[in-house]
């Protein structure tokens, strides 16, 4: 397990060095996107419309933050990750089209995303679910917000962050997926549990 501090824009070379179980901290720009924002971004791409922000080399964060407007300025009060599996249906195209290098969320993602990460050079960084203040304290500035019509949880929030983490590399760009590894272990353990409880498979 190695620890890396990365600055955006992150290059493909930097991403390829990372292995599952490594821990990374990101400094630079991260952008939130949940279901609705993913859907809209992909529609924009299909229509040839540019996104309000160029995501190349940046990190996309599965998060619906609690925000508050103080005067003209937005402040992120709580910003933990949401469950990433909901974005599995969008993420391969999202990585391919917009060249994001890091996807941040919780709960992991499936084979489709793992394959896209290997192909295009991206990783999945698991941020501790619910650790919203830890995340918010690493957000130094809310640089902007787009698509607020989707509601505050679903909008694109553009955050300037400093040492945002710890993010556990749970999917690397070599086809490894820590969640799938854990699933295999769980499969083995299930047999032991059934034996212990005297259950029929």
């Amino acid at each position, binding site marked *: 397990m190695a620890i890396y501090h990365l600055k955006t824009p992150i290059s493909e070379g930097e991403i390829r060095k990372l292995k599952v179980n490594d*821990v990374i901290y990101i400094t630079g720009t991260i952008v939130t996107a949940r279901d609705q924002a993913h859907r809209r971004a992909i529609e924009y791409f299909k229509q040839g419309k540019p996104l309000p922000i160029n995501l190349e080399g940046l990190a996309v964060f599965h998060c619906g933050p609690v925000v508050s407007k103080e005067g003209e300025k937005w402040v992120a009060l709580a910003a*933990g990750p949401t469950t990433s599996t909901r974005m599995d249906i969008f993420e391969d195209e999202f990585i391919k089209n917009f060249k994001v290098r890091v996807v941040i969320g*919780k709960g992991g993602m499936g084979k489709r995303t793992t394959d896209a990460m290997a192909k295009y050079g991206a990783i999945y960084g698991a941020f501790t679910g619910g650790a*919203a203040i*830890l995340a918010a304290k690493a957000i130094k500035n809310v640089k902007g917000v787009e698509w607020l019509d989707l509601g505050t949880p679903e909008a694109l929030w553009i955050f300037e962050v400093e040492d945002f983490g710890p993010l556990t590399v749970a999917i690397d760009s070599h086809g490894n997926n820590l969640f799938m590894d*854990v699933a295999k272990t769980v499969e083995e353990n299930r047999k032991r*549990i059934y034996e212990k409880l005297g*259950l029929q498979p």
Partner: protein
Amino acid sequence: MEIAKLVEDVAFNLLKQAVIYLPEDVKEALKKAYAEETSETGKTQLKAILDNIELAEKYMAPVCQDTGTIIFYVQAGAKVKNLDKIEEALVKATRRATKEIPLRPNAVDPLTQKNSGDNTGRFIPYINWEIVPGDSLELTVMPKGGGSENVCLTGMLVPGEGINILKKFVIEAVINAGAQPCPPTILGVAMGGGADIAMKIAKKALLRPLDQPNPNPEIAKLERELYEAANMTGIGPMGLGGKTTVLGVHVEYAFRHPASFPAAVAFNCWAARRATARIYSDGTVEYLTHKSLV
């Protein structure tokens, strides 16, 4: 003070206590899990959780950005006057809390997909009513996170298979939920009643402190057995592997129809938020879960 305003103020305070400060029993269980976890990645997750809890208290900010669907449990003394004013007071408290704490607006019309923006809407906040003897009013709020809600399930099991089928149902629920409900989780398990009754009592079981096993020794034994089994899965903190998958298992039951064996598993994430207060007939208020704050 008239009861409506008093209930509104108390409910507002409860919402604030609940979303910022985790109950002591939950914090203790997380500290113990951190001390005992052997997986390096699992330990990193638990450390982040403990750091986050400390920061939330320091900055008086919600411990998780998903401040949940707002659910109230009201135990109303039969002699309390103006009970018809309480629902409106709870709705007002929810609106105020959403604006002032603030809470994330989490109430969406399923037909139009529009977010009401203030955590209220048809049936939301949801109020569970119970009429009890006496003249005091006990209010509990459970801000219930969406990630752990998404893996809650009910099942209609085969009665002839006995208690083992329930154990299997629970273990399979934990395995299938995997990382999704933000483990380490707390499980509310119920058997009997009907499909709706099972889930209702399973969810209510999440309100029981972690250091309180079911008073029925047979049920308490089942709780321990399910707790140990769930922690054998290896899912671990945040599903990244480790030996802490659940912090506790609370089992409740209701009598069942001879032909039915309803079962329910309600998950709560590690940010297991709840707060309770009692309002007495003379207007005094006792905060029960967050005593040190008042």
